[in-house]
């Protein structure tokens, strides 16, 4: 018999996400999956799931959950108050949640996207090879929608319930966000590029799983703000007529008609997505060759963190 997870209280934009939906961008289907892939993978590893297992993603505020069997749970993404049956427990490690006990997750501090992984993973049916929810087109997840109070999610088989914690610390710095110029870098003249790389930009509340609208000095495109629509990728920085950059994130559409000044490097996108609204930051440009090297290092670092998890005492 399989376990069930009940949601008693849910924050906004809470959804089922896995490692992403691949192979369908040519058909207009967004990749989706966790906004912070590393935090999602670590949460899964802490409860002995595959890194890409389906877990719950929440924005800013958690909720209250129970399971009808003993399971392991882990919360990652940022710092926040969590408790099990009224007893405070730590984030970024796994805990036993006994059948019927309530797990309460509070508000994230200094981060935007949080993850709750449960041992066995969420086993709703896959759509196009993934359980991730694409909210705008209602593809995947729980009927393509956000999770609400009263929802019940099926869980997979769980192995031995041994709680774990990080052995190798998982750290992210606050260096400028790295970008690779292009594909429409030549739509912007030297002065626009100077502005883009030397002036701070700011995260705003205009953000969801599809995109983040940034505030800061407007960028004017030399050749206009309309192109013949071409492909976008996760991390594309579009510049519409307003001159305010829009960063496409996990649920971003697959094509677009705005020029794209640059692309956020893969290993810095989650760091940007996790910046709370109203925070200033800088961009820096690096070459694609350099970014590839660093992306491979970032993957190796994540593997080391996951490989270095250790059993908790007691």
């Amino acid at each position, binding site marked *: 018999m399989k376990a069930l997870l009940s949601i008693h209280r849910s924050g906004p934009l809470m959804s089922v996400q896995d490692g992403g939906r*691949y*192979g*369908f*961008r*040519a*058909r*207009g*289907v967004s990749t989706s999956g966790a906004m912070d892939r590393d935090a999602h993978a670590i949460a899964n590893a802490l409860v002995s799931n595959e890194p890409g297992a389906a877990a719950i993603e929440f924005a800013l505020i958690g909720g209250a959950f129970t399971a009808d069997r003993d399971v392991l749970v882990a919360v990652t993404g940022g710092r926040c108050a969590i408790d099990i049956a009224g007893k405070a427990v730590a984030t970024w490690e796994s805990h036993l949640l006994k059948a019927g006990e309530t797990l309460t997750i509070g508000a994230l501090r200094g981060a935007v996207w949080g993850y709750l992984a449960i041992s066995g993973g969420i086993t709703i049916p896959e*759509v*196009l090879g993934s359980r991730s929810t694409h909210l*705008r*087109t*209602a*593809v995947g997840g729980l009927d393509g929608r956000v999770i609400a109070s009263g929802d019940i999610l099926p869980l997979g088989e769980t192995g031995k319930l041994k709680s774990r914690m990080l052995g190798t610390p998982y750290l992210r710095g606050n260096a400028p966000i790295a970008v*690779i*110029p*292009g*594909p*429409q*870098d*030549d739509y*912007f003249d*030297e002065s626009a*590029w100077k502005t883009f*790389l030397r002036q701070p930009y700011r995260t705003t509340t205009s953000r969801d799983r599809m995109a983040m609208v940034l505030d800061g000095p407007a960028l004017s495109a030399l050749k206009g703000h309309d*192109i*013949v*629509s*071409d*492909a976008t*990728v996760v*991390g*594309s920085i579009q510049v519409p007529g307003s001159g305010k950059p829009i960063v496409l994130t996990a649920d971003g*559409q*697959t*094509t*677009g008609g705005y020029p*794209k000044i640059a*692309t*956020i*490097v*893969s290993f810095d996108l989650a760091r940007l997505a996790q910046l709370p609204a109203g925070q200033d930051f800088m961009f*820096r*440009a*690096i*070459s*694609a*060759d*350099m*970014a*590839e090297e*660093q*992306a*491979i290092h970032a*993957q190796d670092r994540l593997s080391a963190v996951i490989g270095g998890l250790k059993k908790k005492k007691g």
Partner: protein
Amino acid sequence: MPVTPRPGPRSGPETINEISYPRILRCGDRAIGIEFSDTVSEAANLKVLSLDASLAAEPIDGILETIPTYRSLTVIYDPKTVRGASLGEQLLQRAAQDAAAPDTGRLLEFPVFYGGEHQADFDEIAELKNTTAADVIALHSSAEYRVYMIGFAPGFAYLGGLPEILHTPRLAVPRQRIEAGAIGIGGRQSSINSVPGPSGWRFIGRTPFKLFDPARTEAFLLKAGDRITFRSIDIDEARELDEKVAAGTAELKEIAR
């Protein structure tokens, strides 16, 4: 020390003042594009689809996905298997090879119930063009369209081939919800809506067929390169087809391939 790249010349043949095609565009550390034109042209689109077909037939190691659009092909790759710099060279070489005759795609007939819930836009277009409803239908359904690309939303088809007289600017204020199946006009482009959602295009009718249905064995009805004609149907035929589509027994008419 990393050298900060400056915007400017890219790999691929290019001169200072005039861009020559094809050229390589960097799209981050996991994607790279090859661009054949900066305008909408069937010739450029055929090159895109031809290269895409070549990559499907003889894959390059490390390519995870390909995304053909109007005038460029973007490929998503795993930098652990292939580096972008080398991939860009390989794409240029592959594009320079004598391509096989491009697939002309299937020719499919979509039944359209003109007007209906989109009567207001339909009437406005007739008025803007100073013509009759019957003429708008005759013009729209006499042309052969080509699927230039699928994108924006699951299964959403961007069509080329809209008769010039029907070119109509987008609305200043987009509408919040347009249903799947709606037949749209946005500037020089035409489209078939695939999922409900907001849109600033004008709509003149609907087809009962669903371009995207994840519950179907083949979730997507169209692919880039397919050709389309529209046939005007009345409300009775539309309702009959709605029922068949819901029951999964409706079949799109394939005229040729």
